[in-house]
């Protein structure tokens, strides 16, 4: 278990150990709480731990996951149908952070936070051992209160940078950036493939002009060469849909095979 009590120092530690760990980039994975079940989630996390994953996003299921692609949409809906409540997610997060060495950030939609109460939500997040949160439908203009409270509590609000942003906008986003920045590798929702090409490299370079927090690259990472590419240009490879697909196809073994090819 890392000793850092915030994302920034944790990630810089992890980054420094990359060479030692023979890893091109840090890895963040994604789990939808309660889908297919919390038991399955636990088993997934065990595999992830085996492969030395650095960070995990625990997604709190929401009924209107408008920034997600089909697989996660289904996951959100099934989880809710299975009766997963916000409190269940926090309880699970507590167990996860107590047990595993990777750090955990909450991922979810703003209504889950808003409806719980922003301060209450962050208090519980902190209490459950979370290090930050990613809320794709909360633009920084609307995030003042939440980010303020987070700052008080030492939680990292992860902001997103996207290829459509102007330089001026990237500068504004950078101002708020904390922990790491989630750079969206392409337009669209989660789950479709991204070309890891010079255009992406340029975009990442552009982001770097405005921030020096670590950069995570998301959307469609699924092959070893993606990791290489991200390692060259950024810091964290985000593994989302591909891992869930592997799990759905082959459970533990499927997921292990996936990580084996990804991280050989």
């Amino acid at each position, binding site marked *: 278990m890392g000793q850092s009590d915030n994302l920034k120092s944790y990630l810089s530690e992890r980054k420094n150990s990359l060479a030692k760990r023979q890893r091109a980039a840090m890895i963040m994975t994604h789990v939808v709480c309660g889908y297919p079940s919390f038991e399955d989630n636990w088993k997934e996390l065990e595999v992830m731990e085996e492969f030395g994953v650095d960070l995990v996003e625990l997604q709190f*299921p*929401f*009924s*209107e*996951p*408008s*920034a997600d*692609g*089909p697989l996660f*949409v*289904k996951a959100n*809906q099934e989880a*809710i149908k299975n009766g997963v*409540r*916000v409190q269940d997610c926090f309880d699970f997060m507590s167990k996860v952070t107590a047990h595993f060495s990777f750090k955990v950030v909450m991922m979810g*939609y*703003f*209504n*889950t936070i*808003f*409806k*719980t109460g922003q301060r209450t939500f962050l208090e519980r997040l902190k209490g459950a051992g979370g290090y930050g949160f990613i809320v*794709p*439908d*909360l*633009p920084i*203009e*609307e995030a003042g209160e939440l980010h303020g409270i987070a700052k008080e509590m030492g939680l990292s609000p992860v*902001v*997103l*940078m*996207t*290829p*459509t*942003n*102007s330089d001026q*906008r990237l500068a504004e*986003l950078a101002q708020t950036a904390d922990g790491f920045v989630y750079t*969206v590798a392409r*337009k*669209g*929702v989660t789950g479709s493939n991204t070309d890891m090409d010079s255009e992406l490299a340029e975009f990442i370079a552009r982001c770097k002009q405005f921030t020096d927090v670590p950069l995570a690259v998301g959307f469609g990472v699924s092959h070893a060469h993606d990791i290489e590419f991200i390692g060259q240009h950024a810091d964290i490879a985000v593994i989302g849909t591909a891992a869930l697909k592997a799990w759905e196809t082959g459970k533990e073994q499927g997921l292990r095979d996936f990580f084996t090819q990804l991280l050989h």
Partner: protein
Amino acid sequence: MDLFDFTEGREGYYGEYGGTFLPEILHTTIEELKTEFRKAKDDPSFWQEFIELMQSYSGRPTPVTHLANLSKKLGGAQIYIKREDLNHTGSHKINNVMGQGLLVKRMGKTRVIAETGAGQHGYATATMAARFGFQSKIYMGAVDVARQRPNVFWMENMGSEVIAVKDGQQTLKDAINECLRDWVTNMDNTHYVLGTACGPHPFPEMVSWFQSIIGKEARAQMLERAGKLPDRVFACVGGGSNAIGLFQGFMDDNDTQLVGCEAGGFGPGKGNHAARLAYKDASVGVAQGMKTYFLQNDDGNMLHTHSVAAGLDYIGVNPVLVHLWEKSRVRFEAVTDAQVTEALKLAMRTEGVIPALESSHGFAQAILEAEQMSKDEVVLINMSGRGDKDIFTIADALGDEHWKTFIRQKAEEYGPE
């Protein structure tokens, strides 16, 4: 009162409601839209172009009609209706859609997407796309596709691709989510033609602006026809676009009560209806791009909703209307499915008009109130659309046996698949 004067508050906020809750990737797109919209709104020739288009293509101005028979039968207030049903495509939705079409042209985009529940907005958008020569894709919950096939048929025939959305409840809100997903992928050439005064700023303002044509016309027409302003104005509220459209005409007429009529479905109780403000089952939340009242549970997940009128069967509501409700400028009431079908029957028989099931909500509440009012009072109802396209739903709502026989015969004629 200028509802859209943001100099004293935050842009896109009405009291504490509204805002722009969108993924960062749409930031540039929405800013561009805001800018173009602001330019258009400040350019009197744009409104003129809009008016002319609506005149020559959609038959505006739509009249107000005095329902003398119904008024007499009820023995109370004189009832007038604003005839949005006479628009091309059969509802007020076309006002907003053609307006956005003009904006799309200004922005140089070539493709439009839209969500639709009842199908009226999709139908209007497909029409607009055909007329403007845009590519178009309409997202519609799979459940709605199944129950609103006639509208799908026309959309497809006008050259739109209709996508049956299989997520969630497979209804309107899910179609909206799917639109957002398309938009974050294709924003370069694509405009999202939102169908009601909901969603992220500037949509509530923009849709309200285009729909204000209803209220502008209606106020002048009432003065001319009824010789006075209406004492009460009724409009059904789904997302809230026809209501805000009409209400704007009377916003500064403080003696005119404004009444929003929501879908009471089977009556109060979570899951039974789609009344966000009239019943006590909704609370403030943030979803589908805006902060407003939603029918949701304690975790912020959305509830199932129900209404006989697909176009009112929605979880959220126009943030402008919520603000006006809090300020007691707009009263909210809900009427049940049963009241609505009775009102529809009465309207057909006494006046030869067929309000859409959505619009029949306004009729139902107005009928209740008019009866108690005095004969020299005047009420105005927004007949937001015509019901004849809803024949499948209305025949079902009325339990018409001949209709069922007809459908069985048709199916037999078609033979097995």
